[in-house]
């Protein structure tokens, strides 16, 4: 396989909160078009790493580069516009808006029509609304949510809410899609469906970063896995390599029941 574009590079990143070192010189990268899994026992620094990547935290030292450029100094909404989108571990949809409108908010990232355009219904406003609507409906279709487009997000069943969050993130047209424990609260059958969904998302050309507790899901769907423990990276390789890595086995054995 030839050299692929690196979508994201985390270069020797350390993050300290007061005396606590949450991330300790972590380096990793994500290639275009791959599904990278990030795993580790509770408190290993997964969520922290996730927040550094999505620009919520700024590293104490080291650098995060996205498509070759550092993310430092960008506002959070600007990072999304650049091409990093995420879902939330505990679902954070806009509850009083419909499913369709939730996705429309995502498509709006690349729109610029403001008050004046809206007031005079300018061609730009019409074009953007039409484009956004079409893209959003297509995504809802893809997620199997088209029939619920007009329902309030807060009234959707749990599984649909999870899928809607992914659709909303995809609507921003990201170069990197970060999923934060998307299988939380799912039963085995739903998890299988989710694995299938994540593969189909990748097949549409998305690069996916997956943080997940469920080992079987991560092993089954990712191309490569990064393992964190106590804020350090302890392994990085294909699922098969990770499965046999002694350091990973030591970290996980008996430590975390539902991760095995």
């Amino acid at each position, binding site marked *: 396989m030839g050299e692929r574009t690196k979508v994201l590079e985390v270069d020797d990143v350390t993050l300290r909160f007061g005396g606590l070192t949450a991330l300790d010189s972590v380096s990793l990268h994500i290639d275009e078009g791959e599904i990278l899994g990030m795993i580790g026992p509770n408190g290993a620094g997964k969520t922290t790493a996730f927040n550094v990547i*999505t620009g*919520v935290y700024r590293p104490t030292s080291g650098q995060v580069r996205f498509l070759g450029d550092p993310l430092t100094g960008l*506002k*959070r*909404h*600007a990072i*999304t*516009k650049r091409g990093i*989108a*995420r879902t*939330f571990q505990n679902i*954070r*949809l*806009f*509850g*009083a*808006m*419909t499913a369709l*409108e939730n996705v*429309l*908010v*995502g498509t*709006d*990232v690349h*729109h610029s*029509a*403001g*008050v004046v*355009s*809206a*007031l005079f*219904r300018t061609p730009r*406003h019409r074009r*953007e*609304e039409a484009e*956004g609507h079409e893209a959003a409906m297509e995504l809802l279709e893809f997620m199997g949510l088209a029939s619920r487009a007009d329902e*309030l997000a*807060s*009234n959707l069943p749990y599984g649909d809410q999870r899928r809607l969050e992914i659709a*909303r*993130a995809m609507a*921003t047209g990201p170069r990197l899609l970060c999923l934060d424990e998307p299988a939380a609260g799912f039963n085995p059958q739903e998890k299988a469906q989710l694995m299938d969904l994540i593969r189909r998302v990748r097949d549409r050309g998305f690069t996916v970063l997956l943080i997940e507790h469920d080992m079987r899901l991560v092993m089954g769907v990712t191309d490569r896995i990064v393992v964190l423990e106590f804020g350090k990276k302890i392994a990085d390789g294909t699922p098969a390599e990770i499965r046999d890595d002694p350091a990973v086995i030591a970290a996980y054995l008996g430590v975390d029941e539902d991760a095995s």
Partner: protein
Amino acid sequence: MGPVRTALDAMARRWAGMPRGARVALVVLLAAFFYVLPLVRPPVVTTQQIDFGGVMFGIAAFALVAVGLNIVIGYAGLLDLGYVGFYAVGAYTTGVLTSYQFHWSFFAALPVAIVVTMITGVLLGAPTLRVRGDYLAIVTLGFGEIIRLAVTNVEWVGAAAGIKDIPHPPNIGPDPEPPFGTGGLFTIPSLSWDGLVPSVDTGRETPFLVFGAVSAIPYYWLVLTVLILVLVADRLVKDSRVGRAWEATREDEDAAELMGVPTFRFKLLAFALGAAIGGLSGALYASSQGGYINPQSFPLLLSILFVAAVIVGGAGNRWGAVLGGALVAYLPERFREFSDFRLLVFGLALMILPVYRPQGLLPPRRTIRARAAQEEIDELEGRESAQKEVL
């Protein structure tokens, strides 16, 4: 309260189910009804002790303010307790430009008043919209007081004595000739009622279209027209990327930001637009029948009443804001015979309403649907967790 509640909900549902053409026709009819209402002077509704046209002017002006404040509170979810400050800025800009320092015409001063108020909104919002939501309430409350105290103490804007002789909007048709001329293109008589029998009352005529001391109705027509225009604009903006961004920000600011919504910019926009409408209302108020403003016209209490209007009507629904504004302006005037008790009754009503209509009289349509679903869920769960959270 029970039957009122069901009737309102049923109306809202039927409205949502109507075809578009029927809705437009109904709105046009409703607007026409309100234009002629002060001439028809229907029994029961009409205030007896004070001029009904003046009361209708107050209602329309209050509804306009409520629609503006609804953008800030209802759409963007920002609790503004100092809205009277913007109202005052609009009124004083008009007063200063047309009377106290300069002698511009009303229509020259109006856009300037709107722009000045909008800039005031940006200047206040830019530093303060970054602080957490509830703090905004007290900061804006302070702003309202600062404006009032400033106009009380600054000679250049009239200080405590205020500004008088603010010109009215220009008349259409000939000006009235002193001493008793009515002016205008023609005059329109009102109706008077003997029980349920109407008759034409030629003693109560409204010159078309003279903004003078004879009749408050032309001022009412002006404000009503402005209100309708603002409602249309409100709908166009709400139903766009801007409206969605406001709603997303209100629902979950962090999530909205991470979905690429520049939340601060949109909050500032809501604040500025709300301020502009407040300024517009203030300018109309300044040039209304009396043509006189002073610092006492803008007490802190007025801000509280504005907020009450929006929330009583149903924050987030423009028709709710109109209804809330109208009620808050009308009820105290209608029941003037109980004038000593009207604030007491108003206070009690504000206490009772939330118990029966926790979402306001006309909640946003979506909330109706959401609540229907919630009620089903509650019934299924046997309401065990009714005590938890929310407040």
